[in-house]
């Protein structure tokens, strides 16, 4: 469906219903202009966000994923964002090994009243993703150059040594 005309990149947002989704609403009500790339998935609580949803989005070619929940201490469910914070922090620190630039993923806290902050977050994150450009795709075959490089590495001694 999406026709981006090179103007947009696929950015997925996961927002908790009570704070950040409300913050995005507040920003909308105040007509705070924002980049259009972001598509928001509403969940009840940041504690509902499985880091695997984020990886699933990257698997499907997302250029960036943004998570936002209630500020610590303000969770509607008292503790959900504390669990989220641990999970998301570890995901962020894990990403480099996969080759997905950890800058493509961010998590933050925006309350329902923080319309200006939401605008700032969206704009900053969107700008950042545009600087990084489209994400590398798992579905795209390796280039010839990459294949040759891997073969070279095998020959350099990682695997067996016998070749014709």
């Amino acid at each position, binding site marked *: *469906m999406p026709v981006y005309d090179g103007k947009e990149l696929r950015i997925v947002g996961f927002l908790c219903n009570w704070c950040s989704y409300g913050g995005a609403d507040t920003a909308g009500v105040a007509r705070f202009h924002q980049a259009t790339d972001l598509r928001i998935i509403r969940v009840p609580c940041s504690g509902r966000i499985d880091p695997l949803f984020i990886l699933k989005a990257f698997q499907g070619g997302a250029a960036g994923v943004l998570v936002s929940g209630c500020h610590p201490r303000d969770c509607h469910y008292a503790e959900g964002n504390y669990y989220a914070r641990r999970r998301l922090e570890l995901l962020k620190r894990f990403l480099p090994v996969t080759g997905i630039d950890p800058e493509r993923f961010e998590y933050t806290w925006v309350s329902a009243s923080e319309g200006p902050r939401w605008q700032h977050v969206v704009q900053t994150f969107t700008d950042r993703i545009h600087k990084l450009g489209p994400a590398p795709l798992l579905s795209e075959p390796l280039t010839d150059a990459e*294949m040759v490089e891997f*073969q070279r590495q*095998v*020959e350099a001694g*990682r*695997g*067996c040594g016998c*070749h*014709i």
Partner: protein
Amino acid sequence: MSQQKFLASQSIGSFLETLLREHRVLVPLCEGDSVVFRPFRKGGGLELTRMPTTSPKEATFPRVETLMSFTQKVSAPQEEDGGKERPEIELTEHLPQDSTVVFGSRPCGAKGKTIFSRVYDTEAVKDPYFIARRDNTLFISIACSAPETTCFCTSVGGGPADSTGSDILLIPVTDGFMAEAVTEAGAKLMESAFFDAGTQKAEEAQAVVERAETKLGQAQDFSNAREKLLKLFDNESFWEEMSAKCISCGTCTYLCPTCYCFNITDETAGNTGKRVRTWDNCMDYLFTLEASTHNPRSSKAKRLKNRVGHKFSYYPSLHEEHIACCGCGRCIKSCPAAVDIRQIVKSAQEYEDVNI
């Protein structure tokens, strides 16, 4: 035996390049620390000494194939349907068209497809996908000169230079291979100028094969395994003991040249979808899980029993005593727990029921 020709090691690359014009060419390649069958690339390397980690069955039975794809549309409301829309589905069948040459498989690996044929190409059942691939794939196998501790081809009706399933059999000799056409298609390929009829190293070739046969040692006699295994069908403690160390993964089945089970699933995205066939694994709990949640093979003991039983008992009883195993030993060699199928069959053969 038809006439043997010499294929020099140094001309293999050029020979394969000529094949690329008409065929997809799969060759064993080092990838990481494994040896896998991959499309041959001009100037690319080859790994012909180590036994490939994966079997060449991928050439005729890929890990995953799209059988068909479909698109769903909703037509405008039709009067004859009472003003309701009628879903329309467009189907596209993906019958394999490519012609493939597998170069560098071992005889055991090439033999695998013959075990498939007895199941997927019968009077009653014709699997068009398998048949199309099989009929469009040529195997240029290399006779085995270095049998491994896991090899037991001679115990299951094969041998280091068994040509069953191959189109050309190559026997390694100094500086190259002695080639022997097994099929007409193979003979046709051997008309290539890279095959030299002038160099004769038949004796050396013969010695190589004999050395390998010696190394393999005494073949295990599996002839009474069929009934012994059947007798043990209800012996739970025997199978629990045999399967104790099995971790229920799919290494054995997925690396096996003869395991032919598959799963079919439909995957959709929006209005489009596809029907995919993937390898399935009888060692997995889900293999026989029924919709009611009942599972006739709920334990790994029952599943291992099935795998061993199928290969050495049920299949032979259905298919003229042919054992559904080519003796390549991949299931032993790559098993994370070093489960040894030879030992299991032997234990079954030697089992004496103290209660009888």
